[in-house]
């Protein structure tokens, strides 16, 4: 048995006021056909990162709708996690010297985890590359396969270092299904598994997204030195070149010339083991200089879900000035709070923003300044965009849609019924839409 992760119980019924009866009944209907099915999710870590966040919602919801779901993490020592970090980064396009020793370490720990695998499941979802070879070792040991096995890839493999992907590919080719985040991320040379696309989603009932009273929002702002009575724009992201924190400050400065009362809140989500993040933090602080209307905060100083929630809610405009992005789910978080978003036209962002309807897609600082100013100066239009954003996210990017996609995929693999997330023979942009 691998390491168990505990999750907070959730109930589908609690989402009824948000998504309506029809969607709830649809999910309940799918779940009925899977009643009692045993589902195991396996990933490398119980904390931090988008995968852990998604599993923290998905697993309890699967249980609530009548399946028997569990979440376990693989075992490994530091040497294994060093290798998986290198593997992860190289699959996202960074160059690593992928040595035979690293391959051996990865295989050894996958085998060890396969040996710890001692239960039968109807569906096993293996997340990301770290534990991907568990299936091949398990089949090698037992000579058989129980249930349907799905490899869930959360990362963008399109710039993957070829030798690492070539090494990984045979281990994922034996799966029954493979789920990618975006149609663009599907690897054309992955033959074998049936391919699905499931975009990530936000949980409207989590502390980061749930409603907060206006007074509490204002009070939280004040505690961090932000004046709730003056306009504020915000970006919540890691500090690295791809999120362009320096560009955000430049945009704010240009906008402030027209709107002198403007404030900027930047929340850096930092990892303590990421030296590059520190460098960018310092560069950002230096760029901010002596302007005390720029507030640079960090998760490591206790700025958590509820603070982020408050800053997003209070912002006149939310910025996500990415020059490169995975899915950029933070955009949906902001849209869900009724805020118009001005964001880089990269990665999954254009799936979340309809240009001119729920926000603006921009490619340069000038465009960004222009749109931010436009929204600051046209409150009515900004409010309407915000309202449309809420509806757009309600349709496509809530955790209940994510749950529905998984249920459909399970049924598709087990019984051959149609799944909207299946890639073949369907328009790719349709994923995440609600059946009419």
């Amino acid at each position, binding site marked *: 048995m691998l390491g*168990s992760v505990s999750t907070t119980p959730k109930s589908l019924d609690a989402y009824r006021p948000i998504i309506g009866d029809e969607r709830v009944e649809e999910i309940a209907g799918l779940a009925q056909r899977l009643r009692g099915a045993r589902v195991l999710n396996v990933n490398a870590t119980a904390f931090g990162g988008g995968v852990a966040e998604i599993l923290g919602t998905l697993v309890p919801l699967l249980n609530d709708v009548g399946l028997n779901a569990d979440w376990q993490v693989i075992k490994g020592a530091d040497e294994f996690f060093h290798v998986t970090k290198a593997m992860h980064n190289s699959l996202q396009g960074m160059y690593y010297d992928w040595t035979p020793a690293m391959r051996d370490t990865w295989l050894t720990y996958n085998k060890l985890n396969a040996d710890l695998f001692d239960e039968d499941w109807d569906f096993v979802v293996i997340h990301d590359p770290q534990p991907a070879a568990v299936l091949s070792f398990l089949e090698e040991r037992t000579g058989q396969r129980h249930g349907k096995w799905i490899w869930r890839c959360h990362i963008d493999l399109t710039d993957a270092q070829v030798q690492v992907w070539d090494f990984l590919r045979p281990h994922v080719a034996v799966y029954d299904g493979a789920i990618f985040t975006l149609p663009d991320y599907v690897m054309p040379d992955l033959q074998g598994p049936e391919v699905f696309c499931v975009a990530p989603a936000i949980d409207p009932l989590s502390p980061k997204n749930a409603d907060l009273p206006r007074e509490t929002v204002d009070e939280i702002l004040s505690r961090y*030195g932000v004046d709730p009575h003056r306009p504020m724009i915000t970006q919540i992201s890691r500090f690295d070149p791809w999120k362009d924190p320096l560009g955000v400050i430049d945009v704010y400065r240009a906008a402030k010339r027209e709107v002198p009362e403007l404030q900027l809140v930047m929340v850096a989500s930092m990892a*303590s083991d990421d030296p590059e993040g520190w460098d960018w933090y310092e560069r950002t602080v230096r760029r901010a200089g002596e302007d005390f209307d720029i507030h640079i905060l960090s*998760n490591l100083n206790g700025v*958590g879900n509820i603070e*982020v929630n408050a800053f997003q809610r209070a912002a006149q405009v939310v910025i996500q000035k990415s020059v490169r992005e995975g899915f950029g789910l933070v955009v949906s978080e902001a849209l869900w709070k009724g805020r118009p978003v001005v964001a880089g036209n990269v990665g999954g962002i254009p799936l979340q923003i309809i240009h001119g309807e729920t926000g603006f897609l921009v490619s340069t600082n000038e465009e960004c300044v222009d749109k931010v100013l436009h929204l600051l100066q046209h409150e009515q239009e900004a409010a309407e965009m915000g309202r449309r954003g809420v509806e757009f996210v309600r349709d496509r990017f809530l955790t209940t849609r994510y749950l529905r996609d998984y249920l459909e995929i399970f049924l598709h693999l087990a019984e051959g019924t149609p799944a909207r997330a299946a890639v073949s023979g369907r328009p790719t942009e349709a994923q995440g839409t609600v059946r009419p």
Partner: protein
Amino acid sequence: MYGTPALTHRALDDLIEHAGQDAIDELRRLARPIEGLRVLNLSVTGFGTGTAELLNSSVPLMNDLGLEAQWQVVRASEEDLSVTQDMYRALGGVYVNWTQEMTDRWLRYAQMNAELLTEPFDVIVVHDPQPLALRSFTEDGSARWLAHSHLDLSTAQEDVWLLLRQHLEKYDAIAFDARGFTREDLPVPVRIIPPAIDPNSARNMPLPDDVVHNVLEQYGIDPARPMICQVSPCDPACDLMGVVECWQAAQRRHPGLQLAVVLTTDPFDPAGRSCYEDLARVAHDEPDMTLVSSGMEFGNVELNVFQRAAAIVLQKGLRKGYGLWVADALWKERPCIVAASPGLQEQVVDGESGLVIHSTDECAAAIVRLLDNPDEARALGKKGREHVAKKFLITRYLRDYMHVLTDLHGKK
């Protein structure tokens, strides 16, 4: 020049409602003779530690008092980090095989950082033991040097302590958080400056009941049933399994009792990871136990909610460090049950502002006793807040610092 963390705006006048006008006036009076004093605070990190949190509040307030206070963070490379972490562990009493090569690397790190010290300061406060040797590589200038150790050095590993001691000799004084953290063989005068809480931080701000209830439910906690809460690093030394045992024992008397464990660190090292796994396994089978970690972006407001909602706040088995979360909880008038460790006993006077326990059995009995006697629990919480108001508000910390800085400055 070192790295500079971004500071949050803080104003002394905002503290009047908590500390009283007199305390603020006194601070201004104490600060007047040292107006313009250039004070550099040096630490190893700008984030995620009690020291960082305190500096984040105290440095802007010192500036509001008219000093020219700065906070900078020393530089380190990855190899330095492993040495300084080993040093930190050894000084905390965990055995480390300390080699000559580690000494050499530590000194190189200090030398490199000493070269980065370019601006003139009147007083330099070194907040962590790791960069202490910087002093040995700087010219004797006009600056006074204060070491402020936030670590309990009483059980430090001998060889590492002796190394540190050599470099401490050139300091003007050393400050500790608690009397119990000091040693006999200190080469310089000793001051005690306990840490303090900022009543205006998001962690301590008042919150409406409905927000508290909603957040609890988002974490799967039933607001209608009592909950006990422990905040700790994910570290085997914190005896978190002992916390679970006490709770399970108390549950036999109070079947609806819930437990929330908040981990303030992500378990990076193997010991921490196995500590987490043990907890997760229990939590997995116990619907009334909630386990959260800072890695889940659990922030100040959430901690505030958990503390406010707790029937009892526990701090069991914290061997090292001060455990200042207890002062945060006392400020919210929560009854606290704490282990008998030096930092915790400064905050909780047994039977007066909380209960001090020495074993798991005692702890379980104390939980039951407070649940059975809500009047006693309420009285302890009330006293607790008074105790914090007197001893652990940031205004008291600033006052201690004004005295120390005045003394050091006068030695010129």
